[in-house]
């Protein structure tokens, strides 16, 4: 969990820095075209490119690298494997207090152990899970 929060913080910070730097660069380029012309560097691409290229770059980096690779990768890495105890129970369910049984009252809310759930689903209610 902590590595995920660090990654998301780093992602947002780096994205903001990149945005700021490219915004400054593109605005500066638009202002100084006359000055650059006088220096002799006249063959530049259209000014529209100065605005659009940073957006293209940012979209590619953010979506391809950060979203598809890092975010989905972190999600898959932090899924518990099939042999983990976290798929069965957790600290809350283990340490919950046993509430007293009261006649004619709705049973209290609790985490039912997986053995009981399985007995109820797969042994007693046979007609629900027929082969299809």
């Amino acid at each position, binding site marked *: 969990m902590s590595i995920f929060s660090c990654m998301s913080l780093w992602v947002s910070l780096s994205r903001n820095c990149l945005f700021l730097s490219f915004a400054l660069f593109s605005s500066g380029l638009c202002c100084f075209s006359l000055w650059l012309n006088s220096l002799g560097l006249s063959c530049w691409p259209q000014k529209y490119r100065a605005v659009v290229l940073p957006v293209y770059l940012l979209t590619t980096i953010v979506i391809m690298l950060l979203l598809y690779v890092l975010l989905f990768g972190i999600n*898959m890495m932090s*899924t*518990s494997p*099939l*042999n*983990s*105890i976290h*798929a*069965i*129970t957790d600290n809350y369910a*283990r340490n919950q207090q046993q509430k007293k049984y009261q006649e004619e009252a709705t049973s209290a809310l609790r985490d039912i*152990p*997986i*053995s009981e759930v*399985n*007995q109820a689903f*797969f*042994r007693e209610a046979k007609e629900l*899970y027929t*082969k*299809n």
Partner: protein
Amino acid sequence: MEDEQSFSDICGGRLALQRRFYSPSCLEFCLSCPRITLRSLTAVTCTVWLAAYGLFTLCENTMILSAAIFITLLGLLGYLHFVKIDHETLLIIDSLGIQMTSSYASGKESTTFIEMGQVNDVVINEAIYMQKVIYYLCILLKDPVEPHGISQVVPLFQSAKPRLDCLIEVYRSCQDILAHQKATSTSPEGGDKIISASNRRSHSGMGAY
């Protein structure tokens, strides 16, 4: 007594479940995985050789082609010996324990045995696997510290990955044997409580469980 049924795994491939009923306290399940098909073998070989030929046209070195042939052969042998599982067997003996055997396509067998004293229960659990949610059968092992706690989870039939209908068959038979085992293991303690009222008997039964 032998019984064979056909099921499918989570990807849609065909599985065959063979059930051997030796006695009320001993049962064996053999689940055979879908075999390696000629189509997949041809596809992999063609991609490797086409990639090698592409490299060869770039580098003009004929060793690449021979290396590709060796890689394909060794890769296939390694895959059959270390990765591809032909069938998985689950043998439950009431008083002894549970044995899982995986037989690889090359004939290698790998066996795991869990004694009955360590087994808490056999359940069907759902979990996230890659991009799906699948049902799988697993053995819950007892916690040495806490009597009804669970210390470890051992998933079964990991290579075959059958669907829920197959799992329910295996689950019901396993539960019959485990219930039979619990009944026979607790009968010396329950024998002297037969005279008590039905309420007390049910409570003592739950306590023993």
